[in-house]
């Protein structure tokens, strides 16, 4: 009984013609027509919306935002993105979101940004706050207050690439998978990189260890020496208090395939899911230069890393001593 006729195109996907069953037929062609008709309409709607969002954006952030956006030095290819997938059309909205948080939610206070060099740079910062808002705020600081405005690239976890939307979002924002090859390529083309040598161990620390730096990885030092890049120590004060973690559940985290599962009491209070509106205080230190053999013994590299780590720890102490309140 040939009621469902399947025509297999030689090298393509299927085309199903149910023409034998239904006199008029409900073939894939109809679907194709609908899809063809729909796609341009969706695009038109999106384009119209984009115009409106852009005017709204300009009215909220003022002219300087657009101006800064246009001053960023990007190396876009004919595909409209740079080599790492950064798309200014989409990055704009990401920066906008970060800028709103930066100005109105966390009310960031920045000092020492004049220390940031214009060429290749490795920003090394303490990592805290359970979710990496600190990365976005450091990025926003360099974009909104730096001169010239720059896009700083953070090194993101590899497993984020397996997540839908997240992987595309990071790529269009110019964020890069944390691999030495990628970092080297970016630094050699004079880009700015943001690295958290503490990694997950830093961002997920419990509150009793707040503002005490976790163990530093050595990779960033190897990279700095190899590419002759200045290191700019960065301290972020405030992020530790955005989510107070009192412990973690390693067993459950392993079961769920997560790197870590913190226990955050505020999540169980209505409205507590948002980070607490703490005030961020970001300080940029003076650039540090290191030389030597990038393939040196770990012990030798550890000494150099220790110099950076103590500098950041000192900046954290200074920042904590200076601040009068957590929220103001």
């Amino acid at each position, binding site marked *: 009984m040939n009621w469902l006729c399947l025509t*297999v195109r030689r090298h*393509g*996907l*299927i085309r199903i013609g149910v023409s034998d069953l239904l006199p008029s037929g409900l073939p894939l062609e109809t679907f194709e027509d609908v899809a063809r008709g729909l796609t341009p309409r969706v695009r038109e709607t999106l384009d119209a919306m984009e115009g409106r969002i852009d005017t709204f954006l300009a009215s909220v952030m003022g002219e300087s935002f657009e101006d800064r956006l246009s001053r960023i030095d990007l190396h876009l290819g*004919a595909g409209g993105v740079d080599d790492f997938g950064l798309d200014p059309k989409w990055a704009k909205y990401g920066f906008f979101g970060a800028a709103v948080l930066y100005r109105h939610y966390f009310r960031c206070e920045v000092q020492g940004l004049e220390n940031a060099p214009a060429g290749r740079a490795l920003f090394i910062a303490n990592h805290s706050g359970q979710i990496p808002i600190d990365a976005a705020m450091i990025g926003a600081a360099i974009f909104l207050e730096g001169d010239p405005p720059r896009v700083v690239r953070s090194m993101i976890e590899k497993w984020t*690439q397996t997540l839908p939307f997240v992987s*595309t979002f990071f790529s269009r924002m110019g964020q890069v*998978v944390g691999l030495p090859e990628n970092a080297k390529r970016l630094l050699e083309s004079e880009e700015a990189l943001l690295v958290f040598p503490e990694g997950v161990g830093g961002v997920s620390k419990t509150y009793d260890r707040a503002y005490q730096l976790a163990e530093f990885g050595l990779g960033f030092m190897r990279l700095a020496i190899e590419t002759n890049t200045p290191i700019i120590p960065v301290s972020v004060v405030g992020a530790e208090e955005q989510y107070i973690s009192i412990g973690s559940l390693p067993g459950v985290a392993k079961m769920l395939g997560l790197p870590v599962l913190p226990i955050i009491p505020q999540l169980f209070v209505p409205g507590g899911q948002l980070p607490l509106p703490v005030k961020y205080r970001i300080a940029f230190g003076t650039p540090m230069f290191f030389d030597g053999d990038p393939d040196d013994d770990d012990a030798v590299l550890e000494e150099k890393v220790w110099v950076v780590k103590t500098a950041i720890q000192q900046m954290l102490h200074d920042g904590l001593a200076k601040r009068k309140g957590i929220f103001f």
Partner: protein
Amino acid sequence: MGASAKTVLVTGICGRLGQLVVRQLHRSHRVIGVDRRPFDRLPADVVHHEVDLRKKKIRDVFRTEKIDAVVHLGVMHDPRKSSADHHSWNVAGFAKLLGYVAEFGVKKLVMLSSANVYGPHPNNPQFLTEDAPLLGGASFSDIRDLIELDHLAQGFFWKHPEVNTVILRPVHIVGTVRNAASNFLRLPVVPTLLGFDPLVQLVHENDVVRALISAVESDVRGIFNLAGPEPIPLSRILSRLGKPTIPVPHTFAQPLLRRLWNMRLTSFPPPEMDHIRYICMVDDARARSELHFQPAHDLASTIEAVNWGRW
């Protein structure tokens, strides 16, 4: 024919790419073709041996002709043929060919591999260099033949310093050629994975032909990635081609494609789906400096070339 004219043996000349290579190559060199398929509109000065690579007749060709260079394009990758057939044809055929190249003092061997031997992975660096491991076979077994050929050629490169061995690894080739990537882009409605939009590199078939010919004519040896114009997100390629798309959640797409594949309703092997999920891009700085490779087709004309081939 000038003084630098060579006698070049080309395997797999009846494929789309083979035909293009022969049409270019025979203008300045003597071309001998080997393919078990017939060649319809063969240029008059090209000798074509319609014979299986594994047959003894190939040895006679090497013995009677003074061959200066061998270009190996005869890699079978028809996903519908049995893998045993594939393996024997690809590996045994190429091993025989390597033997003749060494035995009869051929000066040059050019093998067309592919950037797919690296495979798309979530932890790939943005641009893979030639020394990256060939992990394409980790999930997609049909690429293992090509990886094995690539390794065979690499082994040959080290064992026979007197032969200038060149391995070319181009990214997805588009044009009149038939391959999974171009067939995918030629679908009337293109399924994509919801929330995934990897950067993709395409290269125009004519640029690959040019690279092959300059590999034959120059004295270079080694492995060269070929990347073509700048990378572009998959979604942009599809919108430039004016293709309607159906985004499918990836958790659902894999089993669906596997079912279609088992029912023989699609020619896209399910593990190949990773190509529209993860990046597999290469750095071709070595080809640009040593092979003087410079794609003549820009991004727009490369994308347009997708529509050249009809199926």
